[in-house]
């Protein structure tokens, strides 16, 4: 048997290889790599049946590499294989100067390049003027991802609703999912561990379904695809989000990839196997869906929010765990209604975003209350009430 010449592309056997594929260790030339990458995304789409002919689908677009590659590949595939679907770009403006305003310029160019309609929904309009810059001005950098995660989730849904769309696709890639699998494993969060590797997630609190067509695509290949196709994308890090936990999970999988490139896909497959092994127990408590979150999948605020909720609600979670063992019946009893203020689907009187907004509008952060003492009392009647509460609580603690 003739061994393949390592100086030539493993597929066309003529051109110089430029990519070593992490999944297969195949050495491919540029055109063969681009085609192989696109074909795998097509196979994912077909085998999981995520698109329906005639459907209008929003691509959650941040201007970053993942969503830019997603938009480019989906346009290519929709034309090549005639899915008969229509794509629209949907972007969220969190209101972070020097971060999102630059990346939104990229999205605007992408809309022209891919001839797709673009809708940008902003926190400022949706949340009564509360941009993330203002939120951080109020509560500080710590914990702001909680707000951003909750706000973004709802903003994507509201944007989709405005467009009359019931399906949003996001650029989450295999590395992101492997990371999330690890994080859920490390937290012992079985409900999320089950769901995080699913290609499509529907939440009890959202009428919009979400899919991840790039779930088997390596980040390395996404970046190489963007490079070799000369796609126009924007790379930056959210200025407010260090997210140490996800960062560590990320470093872990990148180190694993170096030693054994198949690791990332293996972890994604493990996530799927967990779901298959235990049966799909469906989404946990309403509004607890917290996977990914951030427009930049890297700095996913949702997961941090989830972590914080977890710490705060440890007891509740134990109870939920028991409920899960009893089966899905219990969960279905959860009453879903509309937020009395904004109408968003929720199991409570107020949706999470409105609860957070209430907090922002009514109060100053606890630390400031304690530090500034009397000054806050003069700030308004509502603040006096809250302040008295704080004093009582502090007195009780002493």
């Amino acid at each position, binding site marked *: 048997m003739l061994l393949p010449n390592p100086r030539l592309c493993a597929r066309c056997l003529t051109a*110089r290889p*430029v990519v070593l594929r992490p999944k297969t260790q195949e050495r491919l030339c540029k055109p063969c790599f681009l085609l192989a990458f696109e074909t795998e995304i097509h196979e994912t789409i077909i085998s999981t049946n995520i698109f329906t002919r005639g459907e209008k689908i929003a691509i959650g677009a941040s201007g970053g*590499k993942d969503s830019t590659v997603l938009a480019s590949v989906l346009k290519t595939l929709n034309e090549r294989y005639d899915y008969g679907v229509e794509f629209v770009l949907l972007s969220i403006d969190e209101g972070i100067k020097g971060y999102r305003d630059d990346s939104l310029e990229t999205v605007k160019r992408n809309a022209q390049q891919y001839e797709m309609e673009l809708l940008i929904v902003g926190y400022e309009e949706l949340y009564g003027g509360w941009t993330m810059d203002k939120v951080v001005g109020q509560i500080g950098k710590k914990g702001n991802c909680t707000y951003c995660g909750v706000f973004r989730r709802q903003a994507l849904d509201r944007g989709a609703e405005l467009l009359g769309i019931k399906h949003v696709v996001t650029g989450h890639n295999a590395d992101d999912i492997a990371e999330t699998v690890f994080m859920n494993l490390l937290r012992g969060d079985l409900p999320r561990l089950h769901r995080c590797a699913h290609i499509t997630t529907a939440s009890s609190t959202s009428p919009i379904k979400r899919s991840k067509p790039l779930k088997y695509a390596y980040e390395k290949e*996404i970046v190489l695809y963007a*490079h070799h196709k000369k796609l126009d994308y924007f790379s930056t890090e959210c200025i407010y989000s260090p997210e140490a936990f996800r960062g560590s999970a990320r470093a872990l999988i*990148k180190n694993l990839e170096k030693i054994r490139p198949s690791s990332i896909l293996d972890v994604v497959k493990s996530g799927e196997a967990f779901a298959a092994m235990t049966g799909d127990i469906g989404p946990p408590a309403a509004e607890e869906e917290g996977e990914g979150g951030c427009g930049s999948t*890297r700095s996913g605020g949702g997961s941090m929010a989830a972590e914080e909720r977890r710490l705060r609600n440890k007891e509740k979670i134990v109870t939920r765990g028991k409920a899960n063992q009893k089966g899905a019946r219990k969960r279905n009893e959860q009453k879903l209604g509309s937020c009395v203020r904004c109408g968003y689907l929720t199991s409570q009187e107020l949706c999470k975003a409105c609860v957070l907004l209430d907090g922002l509008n009514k109060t100053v952060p606890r630390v400031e209350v304690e530090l500034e003492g009397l000054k806050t009392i003069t700030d308004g009647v509502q603040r006096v009430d809250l302040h008295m509460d704080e004093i009582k609580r502090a007195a009780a603690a002493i």
Partner: protein
Amino acid sequence: MSKPVTVTLEFSGGLETVFNNIKSRKVTIPAPEDGKTLDMGYVVKYLADNLLKGNRDMFVLADKIRPGILVLINDADWELEGEEEYEPKDGDSLLFVSTLHGG
């Protein structure tokens, strides 16, 4: 004993932010003083010591390229070219692209 080489350096994917926002630049890499080979391992350390202006950990960990940063030598994955052992030639294009930044 190696001779200095002149290469085109490119930084992208957010890595340019730790290299003084250099996107593309011709740079002459001097020969190692200890008489060792001028290979990519040496180039990486040289860049970290001489050109890097921001957080060193964004580029190297223990003087080796940080996992998650792709290196392309004349547009080909450096894993196909021998990685750290590749000896750059005059006119080579070396691209460092981070996959670690926001998507």
